[in-house]
Structures are given as C-alpha cells and as structure tokens.
C-alpha cells in the first residue's frame, strides 16, 4: 500500500466515523407458548430494544386445571390423585404435605415404617427431578451428552419407584394414615402382603451408588465445561432479599446464599433422625443454581442410604375409619419439594372433602420473579435463565 493509498483510506475512515446513534425500533417478541426452552406452555411477551429486553410479561394459564375448585367437590382420599399431577416430575413429593395436613387435622399419625417409606420415596422423587434438570439445562445450552448420562440413572430410580408403587410419575401411593400395600406384593385383595417388595432396599442402595457416580461425572462434564461456565456465571443473578420477597424457594433460593430448607425447619417427615447438609451458593447466578442442585442430589442419596438402614419394622397403616371425615379446622402444612416450598392450606368444615384447599406451589412463586429478573438481560440469556430456574408448568398453572 502506497502512502497515497493510506491517505485516501484514512480520509474515508474519517468520513465513515460520523457519530450516528444506531436506532432500532422497539419490537415485541413472543417467546412460546410452544418454545422448547419453556418446558411446556409458558409464553413470554418481551419488549426488546435490539438484543436487550426492556420489559417482559409472562403469560401463564394455558394449563390451568382449576385444582382448587376440583378439590372442593372431592373427598380427601380422591384428592391424592389430583395433587400427584401438579408437579408431575416429582409426583410423590406433592402428596406428602396434603397427607400430613389431613392427618394432623384428624389427629392421627402414620406408623414409623410408613413415614420412612414416604421419606425414601420423597428423596427419590427429588433425585429424579434434579437429574432431569441436571441434564436438560445443559441441553438447552447446547450440550447433549450430559442428558444421556443423567437420564440413564434417572431411569434406574424411576424403575424402583414404579416397582414399589406401580406408577412411574404418578404413584398415588399415600393413604391417609400411611402408605398403600406395595404393588406386586399380592395379586388379589386376600393375598395382599403389607410390606415392601423383596429386595427393594438393597436395589435402592445400589442405585444410589450409581447416582453418586453420575454426579461425579457431571461435575467434570458440565461444571468444568468452559462454555457452560461462560453462559451461566453472572447470568440471571437473584439477590437474596429479592428472592425472599418474591417467595422464591428451594434450590433457587439456596443458590442465593439463604440456607432455608424446610426439611431442617419443619417436622413433616423424620428428617431430624438423619444427617445431611444444605448446600448453598454464593452469587445466586445460573451456575450456582446448577451446582446447588448437583450437590443436593448427592445429599439426597446419603439421606436415602441412612433411611434404608434406619427404617423400622412395623405396619404400613394406622387404623382409620372406612369413611374419612375430617374435623373442623384450618391448617397449613408445607414441605421441601424438589422445586421449592409446596404447601396446602386446608380448611375443613367437618365434611368428607375440604371446604377450601389453597395450593401453594413452588414454581408459581419461582416464576413470578421473571418480570424483574429478565429486565435488562440479553435475549440469548433468557434461555439460560429460564432453564436455570427449573420450573414445571403444571406446578405453575395448577
């Protein structure tokens, strides 16, 4: 390039460098309701300025089934089948707070063996729910391999749940005053054996070893992955005070550094007999939400291990009247579900069904922070933020 060329070029440069602010008109972008990253039917109406989101309005309710109304026309034993389907990834865990609420209103307590079976199955539901998150979140960011590893072990856990309860996702296994006699224990009502299937506890312990080994793999495969770190570190930060005010619970809250776990504070199942730690994060970003859940799976396997050792012998059910009537009263019972706090406010007027049943689901509150959280974020980060919150639309819409 000659000197004259350089001079010519620099003149063009200076002409090009006129300060024109590039303006793009604001655009409304509809994300969903059939977008794969929304885990169902969530629609986000986003107002975007270029790639920056200025305002977002989540639209929910595509799957609203009106459980609170349906519960008012059903008897207490019938409602178990309904509440199974709220958060279908961890159906068993949904039953627990409702059962405990009903039992406390009636003044009965299930036998210790039934409580331990409930505890084991709750933790297995937590493992299966978290393993789905641990595999689907990297998938949304473009990593397909973790899915294969995590779902393989999740299948093992689901098989065990199915072997015991007869249902992979909707066990409907709890009965007021205990749990149902196990599936396969007897084919007719006369031959029902009131106990766990043979070999269940041993197989469960073996499965827990496998789950722990896949968790080790995930640490290297996902947490150590530089692309994953770049996409999640510092993205979608939820400060602790905001999380509490919006009612964000579960691993999403603990990733923000708040050590709030209902398994430690409320006594709805015999968790106080067992030793486990509550992992928390420091930054409240997507990376912390992933690593907290990963550690929670490991803790859950330790809980199951201890529970299978400690489980006492005995009955699976206490005696309850054939027709269940619940005395007048009001109670709120909440439990630490995989997604967060799941609670039922039961108002009984002495009938066979509740007068009013308020269902407090975790994903609903976890999602209500979205308009605040997504404001000012980049459009490509929306997928990473949505995925890191781990919600289920059935749990949002109820």
């Amino acid at each position, binding site marked *: 390039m000659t000197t004259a060329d350089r001079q010519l070029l620099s003149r063009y440069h200076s002409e090009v460098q006129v300060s024109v602010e590039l303006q793009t008109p604001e655009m409304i972008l509809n994300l969903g309701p059939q977008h794969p990253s929304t885990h169902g039917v969530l629609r986000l109406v986003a107002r975007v300025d270029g790639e920056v989101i200025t305002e977002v309005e989540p639209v*929910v*309710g595509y799957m*609203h089934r*009106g459980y*609170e*109304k*349906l519960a*008012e*026309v*059903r*008897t207490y*034993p*019938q409602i178990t089948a309904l509440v199974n389907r709220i958060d279908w990834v961890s159906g068993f865990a949904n039953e627990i707070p409702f059962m405990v609420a009903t039992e*406390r*209103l009636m003044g009965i307590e299930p036998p210790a063996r039934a409580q331990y079976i409930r505890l084991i199955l709750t933790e297995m539901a937590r493992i299966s729910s978290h393993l789905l998150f641990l595999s689907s979140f990297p998938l949304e960011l473009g990593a397909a391999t973790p899915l294969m590893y995590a779902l393989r072990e999740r299948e093992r856990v689901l098989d065990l749940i199915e072997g015991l309860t007869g249902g992979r996702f909707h066990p409907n296994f709890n009965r007021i005053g205990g749990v149902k006699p196990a599936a396969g224990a007897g*084919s*007719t*009502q006369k031959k029902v054996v009131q106990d766990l299937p043979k070999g269940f506890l041993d197989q469960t312990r073996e499965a827990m070893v496998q789950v722990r080994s896949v968790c080790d793999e995930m640490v290297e495969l996902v947490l150590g992955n530089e692309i994953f770190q770049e996409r999640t570190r510092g993205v979608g930060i939820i400060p602790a*005070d*905001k999380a*509490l*005010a*919006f*009612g*964000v619970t579960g691993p999403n809250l603990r990733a923000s550094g*708040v*050590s*709030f776990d*209902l398994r*430690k*504070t*409320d*006594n709805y199942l015999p968790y106080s007999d067992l030793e486990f730690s509550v992992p928390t994060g420091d930054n409240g970003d997507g990376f912390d939400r992933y690593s907290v859940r990963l550690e929670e799976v490991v803790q859950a396997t330790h809980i199951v291990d201890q529970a299978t050792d400690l489980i006492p012998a005995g009955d699976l059910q206490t005696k309850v009247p*054939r*027709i269940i009537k619940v005395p*007048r*009263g*009001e*109670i*709120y019972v*909440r439990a630490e579900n995989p997604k967060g*706090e799941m*609670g039922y*406010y039961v*108002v009984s*007027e*002495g*009938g*066979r*069904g509740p*007068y*009013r049943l*308020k269902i*407090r689901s975790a994903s*609903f*509150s976890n999602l*209500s*922070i979205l308009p*605040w959280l997504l404001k000012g974020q980049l459009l490509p980060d929306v997928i990473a933020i949505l995925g890191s919150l781990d919600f289920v639309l059935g749990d949002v*819409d109820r």
Partner: protein
Amino acid sequence: MTTNPSELAERVAGVVGSDRFTSDHGTAKVYVDVSSWVAAHQSLASDMPFFSWLSAIDWAAEVAVGEPPESDEFEQRYEILSCVGSPDGRMVVLSTDISKDQASIPSIADVFGGANWHEREAAEMFGIEFIGHPNLTHLYLPDAFEGHPLRKTFPLLSREVKPWPGTVDVEDMPEGSAGTPSTENPEDAG
C-alpha cells in the same frame, strides 16, 4: 430452630397491633383489621422477609357444588389470607375479612413483590379488587372469561351435566347395579 406457634402468633399479634390470634394444629394465624392490612405487612417485612402466598376463602352458607358448611354462625364474607415467614422456619398466616358487597382491599404488592401474582389470581378467582395493584388483569383465565370460579356460587359445569358417583369406592354400590365389585385379578371375576 422452630419457634413455638402459639408464642409466635402472640408476638406477631403484638407487632401488628391485633388481639385475635390462634395457633391450632401448629399454624400460627393472626387476625388483623382490613384498615391495617398493609401496615401489618409493612411492620413484619423486616423481621419476616419471606412472602409465601396470598389467597382468599369464600365463606358462604349456600354452595353451588360440594358440601355446604356445617356451622350455624355463618357470615357472608371473604377472608383474605397471606402467609409470610423467615428463613429460620417461622411462618405466620395473616387474615382479614372483607364484605361481599364491597369486595376490595389495599394491595400489598409494593411491600412484597411476590404478592403481585397471588393478588391477580385471587382477583380473578374471587372477584376481589386489590386497590393500588399495578396490573390487575387475568392471570390464568382467558381475557374474555366471565365469572369468578372459586366463588361458592360458581357451578362446576361437569357436575351439572353428570353428577359424580363419588362414593362407590368407599360405600356399597347403589341398588340395582349388577354383581359384586370386581377384584384386580381377572381370574376371580369369572
């Protein structure tokens, strides 16, 4: 650490200036006047920063579906409930009554951001107006939906069309139905 519910209810009642509180079945519940609804939440917000949920109960003597209440001293009112807590495990339910003629109550969405969606849900389901709410549109229901489904006067269409048998699994089959209840095993049925 879990605080004793009755002590907790008494202490919260002192903070919000109320003299009605219960702790039946381990649920601490404090009744406040509707005029101090927002102030009660404001005075609790620093000590109990966790907002759990907000909802309502339609107390009605006549119901379109389900079982009517047994008690006699029944008033026509909506009861608004909200649940706040703290990460150490304390939890209290605040309650207030509003009349059905004028179903409105000040919004607490400014105090707890999480109340925003819960109030929208209560508004569409019960027809309660939350005064000062930033965006009181339908949350779950379609925009054109008429009526308020969780009111006790709202019928459940499927039950209108066909009454639910409801009791066959716990009581004897209705007269005239054929045979005995079947077992799970097809061999026994024959």
